[in-house]
């Protein structure tokens, strides 16, 4: 049943122009990043990223706001939009349970997030190769570690957005709420990073990508991963509870 529901979700996704727009947009951002690194990198303060660290720079552009906002957009369209237009009820009429529906939605959004994330990685490496040749592989170890670590906060972020969407009644409200949350979180990460790193999973989106310039220590990596897993479990439990109590 879940596979069937997933197929429906992906069929819907394929017809979403928004999804293709994301690829075009990200490609434009990555190419523009590469151009700003090649022009006069020292003048732009880009010499650090030119070459081997170029994929890290693109990852940071993705993490900054675009990636999360796009994810929130997809969640809003897939959950709030469907709920508002009454399409959420349809699978339930065909014998699907609320739990199965929620699971299918969450898995499909996970896969979308993964595709978007992989696109940034592959396209940035490809673009970097075109501009700097083999130098783009100079810091592969550092870069791959970031990619692996970032999977955790990304997954928790998906769960968080799904939970948020279950509480919001429409796309605009959901987008507005996620914008506010992102901005507040960014603010707290800037000013109170040393405190919130113990409780805020979103902090690790910035920390693991090197966006906030914090030098990662071993214990921070371990704590970040544990925090994200624990938060993920709590969020999943919250989603389940909300779905059980929700009037469709």
């Amino acid at each position, binding site marked *: 049943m879940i596979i069937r529901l997933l197929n429906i979700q992906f069929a819907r996704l394929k017809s979403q122009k*928004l999804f293709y727009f994301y690829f075009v947009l990200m490609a434009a951002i990555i190419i523009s990043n590469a151009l700003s690194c090649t022009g006069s990198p020292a003048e732009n303060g880009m010499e650090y990223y030119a070459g081997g660290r170029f994929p890290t720079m693109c990852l940071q552009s993705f993490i900054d706001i675009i990636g999360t906002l796009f994810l929130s957009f997809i969640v809003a*369209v897939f959950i709030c939009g469907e709920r508002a*237009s009454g399409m959420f009820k349809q699978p339930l009429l065909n014998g699907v349970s609320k739990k199965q529906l929620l699971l299918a939605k969450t898995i499909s959004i996970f896969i979308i997030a993964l595709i978007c994330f992989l696109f940034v990685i592959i396209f940035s490496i490809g673009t970097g190769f075109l501009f700097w040749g083999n130098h783009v592989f100079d810091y592969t170890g550092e870069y791959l570690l970031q990619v692996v670590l970032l999977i955790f906060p990304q997954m928790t972020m998906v769960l968080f957005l799904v939970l948020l969407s279950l509480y919001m009644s*429409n796309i*605009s409200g959901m987008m*507005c709420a996620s*914008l506010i949350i992102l*901005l507040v979180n960014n603010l707290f990460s800037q000013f109170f990073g040393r405190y919130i790193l113990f409780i805020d999973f979103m902090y690790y989106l910035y920390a693991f990508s090197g966006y906030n310039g914090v030098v990662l220590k071993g214990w921070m990596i371990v704590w970040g991963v544990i925090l994200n897993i624990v938060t993920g479990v709590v969020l999943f439990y919250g989603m389940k509870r909300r779905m059980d109590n929700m009037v469709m």
Partner: protein
Amino acid sequence: MHPLTKLYARKMFRQRLVYVFFACFFTASFFYAFLISTPQMEEMLNIDISIVGRENFPEFMMRFYVGTVGILFNVFLLTLFLCEEDRNKILYQPLLHGESRKRIILSKTCVAVSMSMIFVLLTAFINYTTAFMRWGANIFKAAAIIRTLEKYLLSGIYMTAIMLFIIVLCIYTRSSWKTIFFVIVYMFMDSFIYNSDILFLKKLWIGYYFNFWTFSCEYRAVPLKEIFGGIFVMGLYGIVFYQISLHRTKKIDF
């Protein structure tokens, strides 16, 4: 004020998200005012407190609202106000009570336009309040205040024109996500055109003057020529957007 406009204004200001947003903005402004003075923060945020602090602080904080965040916030509110109402079939309900289509759009436009201006002035008030709390009377330097308030007002005019653009999008697309999508496209185009070298296109682009006022004339007065040029272009765009929205409303099929 027309009763319909009053009704829409009440509806808009009943949105809790507006209050949450400005509470967050106040917190952000407060943190920036009090916490950026440390050398670590200066280095991390790549700023020089001797430049961005004191009388320049409200101008420094302006960019946190006007531009990307402000436009996104306004588009989310407007889609809630127009597209969601349209989808729930309450946008054109006043027609049943004898109101004209033109009246509905006029009332919506009045509320949206005043809302955008009020929000910009509210951010000015918040930034001046936090700057006063941090630096006291040192922020009151006549030349700086005139320059900053002038920039806030100019930004308000820009936001007003953008609101009219968003109304046109809402009426044409009749869908929240499509409107948000096109506004994001606009923001990318804006940044692309501002950074391009095509001067003719830049001068005709609605966002060019705003970027010029905010970034090219940072912490200094804007030349009069650029002020009037910008107001003229934005006014022109505003009129065109308003006429398009009226034209479309007349033709819309419910």
